[in-house]
C-alpha cells in the first residue's frame, strides 16, 4: 500500500457541513421518546417503587423497572454485575431505576417525576482505601475488591543504593465525547426481535449483552452503527441500549433515547481516579535496579473493565525502562462513586504519571537530567517486562527520546514576539504581564500495550466483494471518528487496484470486528480487510491466469492493472473483474496471549508501542495559571498508513493529556458529581491547546499485518506527566496530583 497515502475521509465533508447523521439525529415514523429515572443517592435500599402516577399521565406508553426485564437482570463487559435497573439497592448517583416511553420529552420528564421510589439510605463507601482495607461492609454481592494482582519478580531484597519514592494521585477524567449517547430501537412486528441503531464501540459485544437481558438469542437483536461523535472508551459499556430495546418491545413502536450532557456524565463510565505509591531503587548512576509500587484504582459501583485497567497499570509500572526486579501490588475496588472503566490509555495513563514522576525524582537524586536518565534506562526489543514477557516488537524508546529532543523548542519568548496577552497564562482574562511568568520544560515517555490481553481471543472480521471493478467492503468495525473508514478504503484500493470502494453498512450481519479501543482497529480490522482483499486478489489472479495462460503466481497489481511480472500482460482490474463476483471473508486473529499467574508472570500482552513527549509550559507562579506553549513528540507508529490521520490522533490525544494535566476533573463529594456540565467540566479550548511538533518514527513492525502500530492512545499517556513536569520545572516545587489546580501551584 502507498505508505504516504493522504486519502481524505469519506465522512469528512458531511461532518464539516453538519449533514452527517449522528445517532442522536435518527428518527422513525411514529417513534416514542424514552427517558430514564436515576438514583439520587450514592447508596440506598429501595423499599418501594410506585409507577402508577406515571401511567396516569396522558401520552405515557410504557413504564418499566427491574421487574420488566425479561432475561438476565444484569450485564457487564467482564463480569455481569450491573443491573439493567436497580431493584433492591442503588449503588451510585445516577443508577437507572426505571424508564418510560412517551409521546414527547416533556411527557417523559413529567412521568419520571411522577414515579415514587422509596429509599432507605445506607452509608456510602466513598473512600477506596477502605475497600482495600476491608473496613466497610460489602456494597455488592461480589464484594468490594474487584481484583487484586501482585507482580513479584527477581530479587526482593535489593535496596538502594539510590532510593526515590513518591505518592501520586489522578482525579477522575471524563471522555467528554461531543456526540451524546443516543439510540433508536425498532421492534420486529411480532415483537420477537428488535433492531437497534446506536453509537457504540463494539456492536457484537452490545448485541450479546442486550440479547441476554432481553431473553433473546443473539440473532434476534440486530445492531447497526448510528453515527458516532467520539467514544474514547465511554461507549464500551452498555448505557441506554437495553432500556431502549425494552421500551420498544413493550410498546411495539420505535423508541428513541438520547442523553443530555448532564445525564451523559452520570450515564457512562469514567477514567479511574487512582492513588499510586512508588519506590525506585537505582545504582549511583541512575540505572534502575528494582521498583516497588502499590496502586489503588477506584472502580466505582460496578466492575466494568476495572480488572483489565488494573492489569494494564501494574504490568506497565516500570514504564519503557529496563527493570529486572519488582514488587507491585494493585487493587481495583468497588465504591459508591460513579463507575469507572475504559478511557484512552486504559490504566497506563495512571501508571505513567507515577513512573515519570519517579524518573524525574531519580534524575534529581543522582544529579542527572530528565533526558539522560531516560536514555540510560530505555528498553529495547528483546528486553522483558516485570511480567517476564519479552518485548518482541520494534521498540525505539531511545529514538523516541532523541528525536523529541531534536525537535525545535518554541522560537517565541513568553507571550510571543508580539507580547500578545492572549498567549500568556490566563489568556483572555488578561491576568498576567510577561514579568509574572516563568517557563518550564518537562518530559514524559511511555510504553503502551496494543490490542486485548490475558488470553482473550481477539479477532476482527471483514468481507470483500469485487464486482465489475468495484470493491464492496463489509465489516462491523465501529467508526467512532478515528478514521477506520478511510484506512479500509485505502487498503482495498491498493491491494485490489480498484478506484471505487463501497463501504457497506456497519452492522451485525457479519462477524465481530472486536472493539474500537486498545489502539487496535488499524492492526486488527486493517488486518482483516487486508486479508480479505488478498484472498479476493488470489481468485482474481487465478481467473486472469486461466484466461491468459499465465501462472497466477506471476501476477501482481500495478496501479489499477493486473500485470504479469514475468511478461507483458497488462489487464485493467475493471476489465479483469467484469461480469464476475468474487467474494471472500477473512478473520484476523492476533497471536494468543496468556493469563498472569499469581506472581504476575506471563505473556499477557499482544504488542507494544512507545512515545516521548516534551512539554514547554509558561506558568504564572503567583496566580497558579498555566499556558502550555508547545508539546514536541516522537511516536513509534510502525508505519503511518495515513499521516494526516496519525497527526489528528496525536494532536487530539495530546489535547486530552493536557486536559488531564491542568483542568479536566469530575469533582465529586460523597458520591455526588458537582460539575456534570461543560460549564464546569472544563475541556481545553483553542487557547489552551499548545503548538504540537511531531516526528513520526516509522519502523514497520513485522508482527503487524500492515506494519502499522495503533496510534490512538500513546499521545494521551505521557503528555500529561510532561506538562506536570514542566510546571514543576518552572515552579521549583513538588506537584504530584493531576489535574494541577491553580491553588496547588500558588498557595
Amino acid at each position, binding site marked *: 500500500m502507498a505508505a504516504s497515502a493522504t486519502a481524505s475521509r469519506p465522512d469528512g465533508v458531511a461532518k464539516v457541513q453538519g449533514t452527517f447523521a449522528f445517532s442522536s439525529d435518527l428518527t422513525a415514523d411514529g417513534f416514542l421518546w424514552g427517558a430514564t429515572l436515576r438514583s439520587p443517592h450514592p447508596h440506598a435500599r429501595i423499599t418501594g417503587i410506585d409507577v402508577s402516577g406515571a401511567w396516569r399521565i396522558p401520552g405515557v406508553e410504557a413504564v418499566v423497572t427491574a421487574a420488566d426485564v425479561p432475561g438476565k437482570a444484569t450485564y457487564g463487559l467482564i463480569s455481569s454485575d450491573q443491573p439493567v435497573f436497580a431493584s433492591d439497592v442503588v449503588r451510585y448517583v445516577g443508577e437507572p431505576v426505571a424508564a418510560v416511553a412517551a409521546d414527547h420529552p416533556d411527557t417523559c*420528564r413529567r412521568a419520571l417525576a411522577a414515579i415514587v421510589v422509596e429509599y432507605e439510605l445506607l452509608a456510602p463507601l466513598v473512600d477506596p482505601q477502605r475497600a482495600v482495607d476491608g473496613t466497610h461492609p460489602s456494597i455488592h454481592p461480589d464484594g468490594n475488591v474487584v481484583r487484586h494482582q501482585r507482580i513479584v519478580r527477581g530479587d526482593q531484597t535489593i535496596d538502594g543504593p539510590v532510593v526515590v519514592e513518591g505518592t501520586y494521585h489522578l482525579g477522575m477524567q471524563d471522555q467528554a465525547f461531543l456526540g451524546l449517547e443516543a439510540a433508536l430501537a425498532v421492534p420486529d412486528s411480532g415483537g420477537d426481535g428488535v433492531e437497534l441503531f446506536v453509537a457504540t464501540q463494539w456492536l457484537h459485544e452490545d448485541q450479546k449483552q442486550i440479547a441476554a437481558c432481553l431473553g433473546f438469542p443473539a440473532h434476534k437483536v440486530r445492531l447497526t452503527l448510528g453515527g458516532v461523535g467520539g467514544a474514547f472508551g465511554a461507549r464500551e459499556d452498555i448505557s441506554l441500549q437495553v432500556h431502549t430495546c425494552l421500551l420498544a418491545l413493550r410498546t411495539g413502536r420505535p423508541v428513541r433515547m438520547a442523553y*443530555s450532557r*448532564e445525564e451523559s456524565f452520570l450515564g457512562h463510565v469514567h477514567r479511574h481516579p487512582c492513588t499510586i505509591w512508588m519506590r525506585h531503587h537505582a545504582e549511583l548512576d541512575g540505572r534502575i535496579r528494582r521498583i516497588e509500587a502499590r496502586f489503588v484504582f477506584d472502580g466505582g459501583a460496578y466492575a466494568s473493565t476495572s480488572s483489565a485497567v488494573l492489569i494494564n497499570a501494574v504490568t506497565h509500572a516500570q514504564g519503557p525502562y529496563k527493570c529486572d526486579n519488582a514488587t507491585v501490588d494493585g487493587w481495583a475496588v468497588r465504591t459508591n462513586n460513579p463507575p469507572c472503566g475504559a478511557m484512552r490509555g486504559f490504566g497506563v495513563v495512571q501508571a505513567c504519571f507515577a513512573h515519570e514522576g519517579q524518573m524525574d525524582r531519580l534524575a534529581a537524586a543522582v544529579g542527572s537530567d530528565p533526558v539522560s536518565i531516560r536514555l540510560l534506562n530505555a528498553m529495547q526489543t528483546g528486553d522483558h517486562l516485570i511480567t517476564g514477557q519479552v518485548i518482541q516488537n520494534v521498540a525505539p524508546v531511545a529514538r523516541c527520546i532523541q528525536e523529541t529532543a531534536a525537535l525545535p523548542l518554541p522560537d517565541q519568548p513568553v507571550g510571543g514576539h508580539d507580547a500578545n496577552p*492572549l498567549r500568556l*497564562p*490566563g*489568556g*483572555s*482574562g*488578561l*491576568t*498576567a*504581564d510577561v514579568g*509574572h511568568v516563568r517557563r518550564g520544560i518537562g518530559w514524559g515517555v511511555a510504553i503502551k500495550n496494543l490490542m486485548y490481553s490475558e488470553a482473550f481471543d481477539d479477532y476482527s472480521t471483514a468481507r470483500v466483494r469485487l464486482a465489475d471493478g468495484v470493491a464492496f467492503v463489509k465489516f462491523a468495525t465501529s467508526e467512532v471518528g478515528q478514521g477506520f473508514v478511510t484506512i479500509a478504503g485505502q487498503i482495498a484500493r491498493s491491494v485490489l487496484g480498484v478506484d471505487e470502494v463501497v463501504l457497506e453498512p456497519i452492522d451485525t450481519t457479519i462477524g465481530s470486528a472486536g472493539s474500537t479501543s486498545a489502539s487496535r482497529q488499524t492492526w486488527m480490522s486493517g488486518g482483516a480487510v487486508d486479508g480479505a482483499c488478498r484472498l479476493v486478489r488470489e481468485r482474481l489472479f487465478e481467473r486472469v491466469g486461466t484466461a491468459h495462460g499465465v501462472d497466477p503466481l506471476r501476477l501482481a497489481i500495478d496501479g489499477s492493472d493486473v500485470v504479469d511480472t514475468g511478461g507483458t500482460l497488462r489487464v485493467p482490474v475493471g476489465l479483469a473483474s467484469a461480469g464476475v463476483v468474487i467474494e471472500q471473508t477473512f478473520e484476523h486473529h492476533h497471536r494468543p496471549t496468556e493469563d498472569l499467574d499469581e506472581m504476575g508472570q506471563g505473556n499477557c500482552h499482544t504488542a507494544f508501542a512507545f512515545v516521548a513527549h516534551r512539554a514547554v509550559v509558561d506558568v504564572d507562579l*503567583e*496566580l*497558579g*495559571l498555566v*499556558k502550555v506553549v508547545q508539546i514536541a513528540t516522537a511516536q513509534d507508529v510502525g508505519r503511518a498508513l495515513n499521516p494526516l490521520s496519525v497527526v489528528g490522533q496525536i494532536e487530539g490525544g495530546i489535547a486530552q493529556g493536557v486536559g488531564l494535566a*491542568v*483542568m479536566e476533573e469530575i*469533582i465529586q*463529594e460523597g458520591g455526588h458529581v*458537582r*460539575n456534570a*456540565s461543560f*460549564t*464546569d467540566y*472544563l475541556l*481545553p*479550548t*483553542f*487557547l*489552551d491547546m499548545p503548538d504540537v511538533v511531531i516526528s513520526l518514527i516509522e519502523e514497520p513492525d513485522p508482527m503487524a499485518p500492515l506494519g502499522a502500530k495503533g496510534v490512538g492512545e500513546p499521545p494521551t499517556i505521557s503528555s500529561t506527566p510532561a506538562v506536570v513536569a514542566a510546571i514543576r520545572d518552572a515552579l521549583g516545587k513538588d506537584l504530584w496530583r493531576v489535574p494541577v*489546580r*491553580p*491553588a496547588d501551584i*500558588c*498557595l
Partner: protein
Amino acid sequence: MSVIVPASLNDALQALARSPHATLLAGGTDLMVELNGGHRQVSEVVALARVAELRTWHHDPVAGVLHIGAGVTYAEIADEPIASWVPALAQAARTVGSPQIRHAATIGGNLGTCSPAGDGLPVLAALDATVHLASAAGARDLPLAEFMVAPKRTARLPGELITGVTVPVLGGWQGYSKVGVRNAMVIAVASVALVTDTVTESVRLALGSVGPTVLRCPDAERFAREHVDFEHRRVAAEALQRFVELARDEARPIDDHRSTAAYRRHAVGVLAGRLLRRAFPNE
C-alpha cells in the same frame, strides 16, 4: 408556553403590563441553558430581540456619559467605538464565553441574571453605573449597587424591564482581569475591575465572584487615592502591597466546586495589585 415578540419598547411594556410575571428573553444564553436543563419552567415569554430601542447606545460627549441599551451585545461592547469609551467594559466583554455567545449575550441579560460571576458587572460597579428600569407606569433609575440584591436577585419589580445602563466616560486608565481555570470561555473564579478618574483623581475597585454580589472596596479605594501619584502615574511598592491586602480583606468568598475561598481571596488580591500597577506603572 406563549411567546410575545414586541417590535417596540412601548409594545414590550404593554405586554409586561398585561403579564407582569412574564419571563424576559434577550440573547437567551442564560435563560435557554436553564430551560434546557429543566432548572426553570416558564409559561409566558416576552422576547426582546426586535425591540430596536434596547439595541442602541448613545454617547453624550458634553455630559461625558455613555448610555448602553440593555439589548446591546457583548460583541458590540468589545468593539469600537464602545471599546474606546469604556475600555474595561470592552475587556470584560472579550472574556465572555466564545464569539458565538458574545454575539447573542446582552448586557441587559447579564444584569438580569445578576450572577456575582457576571463579567460585565464588576466594571459597571467600578464605574458607578446607573441602571434604567421602565414599566408601563413609568421609568426609574437605580444605582447598580442598589439594583444588585443577592446572587441572581435584583431590585427589578414585576412588570419592569431594564432599558439600559449609563456609565461615565472617564479619562484615566481602566482595566478588567479575570481568573478562570482555562484560558478562554470560562466562568470567573475571581475577577477585578479597576477604574481611575483623572479629574477627581480617584481609584475605584470592584471584585467579582468573591461575594454574593459584586463588591466595591471603599477602604482600598480611599487608601489608593492617598497613595497614588496621578501626575507621574506612580505608586510605591509598599503602598501597592497594602492595597492588595485591603482588596483581599474586602472579599467574602466561598468554597465551591470551582475553587476554594482561600484561592479566590488570594487571587483578587493579586489581580488588584497587578491592575493598580498597570494603571500606575512607575514605582
